[in-house]
């Protein structure tokens, strides 16, 4: 008798049945087999990492150089690694969904409806919160401080804590594969379906805490980036000399500061409904799910621009660099970015045109939505005109950017269609909508991030990525995208609704087959990126670019070694022009030693961030399974950690001027030994990161 309450005290709602293996043994079928296999993959992956770290004796390095570091560049790289791992999982899930829909015409597919629901929920949740967000935040961490001539972000520890919280959220999503299940409520988690009455399991709770942790982390990041850009720009870096990527980083940060909170509020209110019997979004006693819809999309729509603006920044840099030209229409691009930032807060209602507000209200939001097409259109023209009369080099990042420009316009057009409330009434919640937003987010965010990955990889690691495999991945991704998503437009117009587990319309089948073949190509694209990384690491000696400027870059990040020193700049540069580094090269003052070096204070490593990450994971897990003692303990320890840290006064180290001098002079000597590369040879092993100065 006493066994059960005791178990509940220590383990909450956890039981053996929470393990997918047990479920597979009890009811063996294709769906539970896949679930058990996925769980085994997660466990295998975790064990694999531990074994590898132990085998190569890298635990100390891992701890000292990575987990406890406060260096923005390394934090950025960890963000990107997290994003890539989660990308792999989410693409596999997408392939499974395509397979399911293709196989489930007039019969049952391999997956149960519940399992399919989990797949589309994790796919969306991961792609937005644990792929797109970490990828772009990581990229901003690596690039932005260098671009504005800063040594670091303003709050390095906060930066590490943000990463830890995001990682904790991602870990929760991964744990949900092994213990229990994930939400089936879609990435938007609409109540009342996600309320206790309809969803009593742990799935929605996993979703709530994973999303909440990551959104708190993101809010802190937004504050950090905004302060960095406002306060830490190098002398001479006026607003209108700031590279466009940093502009988009600023606008994204502002969006994050304002837009993350509605999500946190929505998930916390949903949590109160579920845990404490409140009535915010329930069906009974005055709850109203429309409040959730408003809160969620008050976040959700700006979120679209949070993930797309940094990609716009990347494309601006890529078009300019790989056309060997100054960016066309710089001011219009800046103002278009600001306009998008402002407008993005005025359109959230178009996510639920059909949910009962008056026609006039719908019309107002429809018009606001169409207005966003204007600044976006300005941007596309600016990018095209940047290429005009440039010496365009079709490298991997440029290919991704051009494919983006073409594809994004198609997606934008279908978006203008959807902005019409009457049309939206006809196609809302159909695969037409799914096609539309994938048509924006894949070429926009994802291709932007891939372009950035190829451009800035040599800056992060000191060697370039294989161009051959980069191009192969590009073609797979591009054809894969068109094959996978163009059929969904047709299917949507034929009446196929999103998130459907089984069809009874045989005429869907040909389109579903094509879409599946697209998913296969996309998977091949992802595999070629893994091969690209592998091949590049193996051939790193041929690909090395120690000069740090492999693409004849135009902004300050290319003016330092690759990888850059911890303190970024031996001496903070003075900025004279919008294309700061190009100006330095043209005036012959790049790669010059300064008259004197100074001591540089940098933040010391700290265990606070990994500790908080671990505790936050525990907290989320304990809340999900109602393990109250662990909830209280982990919360109190987090609080105690923060307070204890405020008493820690030994947080800075001084890098002596002599060391800075030695490192910088060593690099300068190395650069002297390099042969400048012509742009035509930039993808060959000739390219060691010293660009020929164009006259």
């Amino acid at each position, binding site marked *: 008798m006493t066994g059960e309450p005791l178990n509940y005290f220590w383990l909450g709602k956890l039981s053996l049945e929470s393990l997918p293996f047990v479920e597979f043994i009890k009811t063996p079928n294709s769906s539970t087999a896949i679930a058990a296999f996925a769980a085994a993959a997660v466990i295998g992956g975790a064990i694999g990492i531990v074994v590898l770290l132990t085998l190569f004796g890298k635990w100390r390095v891992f701890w000292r150089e990575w987990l406890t570091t406060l260096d923005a560049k390394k934090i950025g790289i960890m963000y990107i690694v997290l994003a890539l791992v989660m990308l792999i999982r989410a693409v596999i899930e997408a392939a499974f969904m395509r397979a399911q829909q293709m196989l489930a015409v007039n019969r049952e597919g391999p997956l149960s409806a519940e399992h399919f629901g989990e797949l589309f929920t994790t796919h969306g949740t991961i792609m937005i919160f644990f792929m797109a967000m970490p990828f772009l935040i990581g990229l901003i961490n690596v690039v932005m401080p260098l671009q504005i001539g800063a040594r670091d972000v303003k709050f390095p520890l906060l930066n590490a804590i943000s990463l830890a919280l995001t990682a904790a959220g991602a870990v929760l999503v991964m744990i949900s594969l092994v213990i229990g299940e994930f939400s089936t409520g879609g990435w938007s988690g609409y109540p009342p379906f996600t309320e206790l009455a309809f969803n009593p399991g742990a799935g929605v709770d996993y979703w709530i805490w994973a999303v909440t942790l990551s959104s708190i982390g993101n809010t802190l990041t937004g504050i950090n980036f905004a302060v960095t850009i406002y306060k*830490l720009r190098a002398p001479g870096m006026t607003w209108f000399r700031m590279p466009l990527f940093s502009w988009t980083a600023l606008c994204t940060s502002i969006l994050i500061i304002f837009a993350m909170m509605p999500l946190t509020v929505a998930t916390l209110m949903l949590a109160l409904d579920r845990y404490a019997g409140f009535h915010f979004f329930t069906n009974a006693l005055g709850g109203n799910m429309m409040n959730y819809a408003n809160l969620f999309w008050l976040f959700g729509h700006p979120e679209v621009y949070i993930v797309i603006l940094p990609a716009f920044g990347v494309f601006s840099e890529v078009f300019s660099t790989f056309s060997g030209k100054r960016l066309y229409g710089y001011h219009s691009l800046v103002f278009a970015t600001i306009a998008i930032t402002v407008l993005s807060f005025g359109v959230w209602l178009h996510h639920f045109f059909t949910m009962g507000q008056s026609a006039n209200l719908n019309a107002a939001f429809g018009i606001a939505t169409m207005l966003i097409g204007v600044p976006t259109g300005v941007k596309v023209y600016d990018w095209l005109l940047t290429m005009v009369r440039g010496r365009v080099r079709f490298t991997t990042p440029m290919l991704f950017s051009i494919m983006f420009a073409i594809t994004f316009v198609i997606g934008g057009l279908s978006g203008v269609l959807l902005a019409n409330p009457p049309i939206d009434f006809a196609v809302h919640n159909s695969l037409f909508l799914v096609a539309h937003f994938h048509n924006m987010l894949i070429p926009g965010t994802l291709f932007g991030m891939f372009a950035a990955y190829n451009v800035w990889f040599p800056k992060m690691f000191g060697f370039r990525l294989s161009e051959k495999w980069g191009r192969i991945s590009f073609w797979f991704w591009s054809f894969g995208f068109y094959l996978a998503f163009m059929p969904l437009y047709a299917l949507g117009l034929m009446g196929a609704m999103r998130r459907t587990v089984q069809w009874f319309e045989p005429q869907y089948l040909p389109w579903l087959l094509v879409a599946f073949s697209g998913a296969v190509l996309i998977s091949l694209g992802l595999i070629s990126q893994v091969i690209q990384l592998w091949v590049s690491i193996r051939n790193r000696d041929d690909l090395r670019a120690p000069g740090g400027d492999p693409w004849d870059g135009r902004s300050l990040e290319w003016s330092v070694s690759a990888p850059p020193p911890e303190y970024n700049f031996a001496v903070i540069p003075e900025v004279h022009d919008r294309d700061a580094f190009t100006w330095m090269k043209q005036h012959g003052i790049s790669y010059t030693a300064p008259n004197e070096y100074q001591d540089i204070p940098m933040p010391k490593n700290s265990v606070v961030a990994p500790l908080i990450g671990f505790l936050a994971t525990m907290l989320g897990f304990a809340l999900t399974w109602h393990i109250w003692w662990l909830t209280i303990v982990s919360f109190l320890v987090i609080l105690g950690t923060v307070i204890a840290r405020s008493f820690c006064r030994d947080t800075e180290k001084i890098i002596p001027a002599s060391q800075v001098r030695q490192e910088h002079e060593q690099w300068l000597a190395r650069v002297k030994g390099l042969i400048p590369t012509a742009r035509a040879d930039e993808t060959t092993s000739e390219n060691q990161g010293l660009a020929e100065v164009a006259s």
Partner: protein
Amino acid sequence: MNQRSNRLRHPGINMGHIDSATDEAAESLLFGFWIFLMSDLVLFALLFANYAAQSQHGTAGGPTPSSLFELKNPFIETMLLLASSFTIGLAALALKYRQDRARLVFWLAVTFVLGTGFIYLEVHDFVDMTSKGHGPQTSGFLSAFFLLVGMHGIHVCSGLIWLIVMMVQVFVFGLERDVKTRLMRLAIFWHMLDVVWIGIFTFVYLFGAA
């Protein structure tokens, strides 16, 4: 007097001509904290909006604002919080003009006591309402009420913890730069809580009881 020291470079008290090094350090710290407060105010804006909707449409036939709210305790709470904002202002002045730890800690302690009194009354009211069957589980309106007012209460509690930490740090570290900039941030945090409470007192209590 040089002009630079007179220019206010950040929200909160201006330490410019007293301690320019702290002023320098405070510039981006307080700016960052100011931005954090902005994001925190978005939280309260949303809770206010949610309360506005649910106090009208979410009463579910149960109690309504006018049938429930009495002004006595909220009014005392308002006075306590306003007074505490004044005393933390006096603490800030002690920090700025006198290098007097005892005076500073005294005003911080008074602020703490007033804040604790506020929390005591609030918890007392919450318990009272719940015991009369008007807990947050009663209706959407009461859920929204408890969340809005409770969220403010949680903020006040974190302010109280922060006050304790700072009193300890004043004794342990003395009035060094980190302690000063932290106190400056604590002060604007405390004032923000006051502003939010004025909103709550007006829109929830005065509006509701009318």
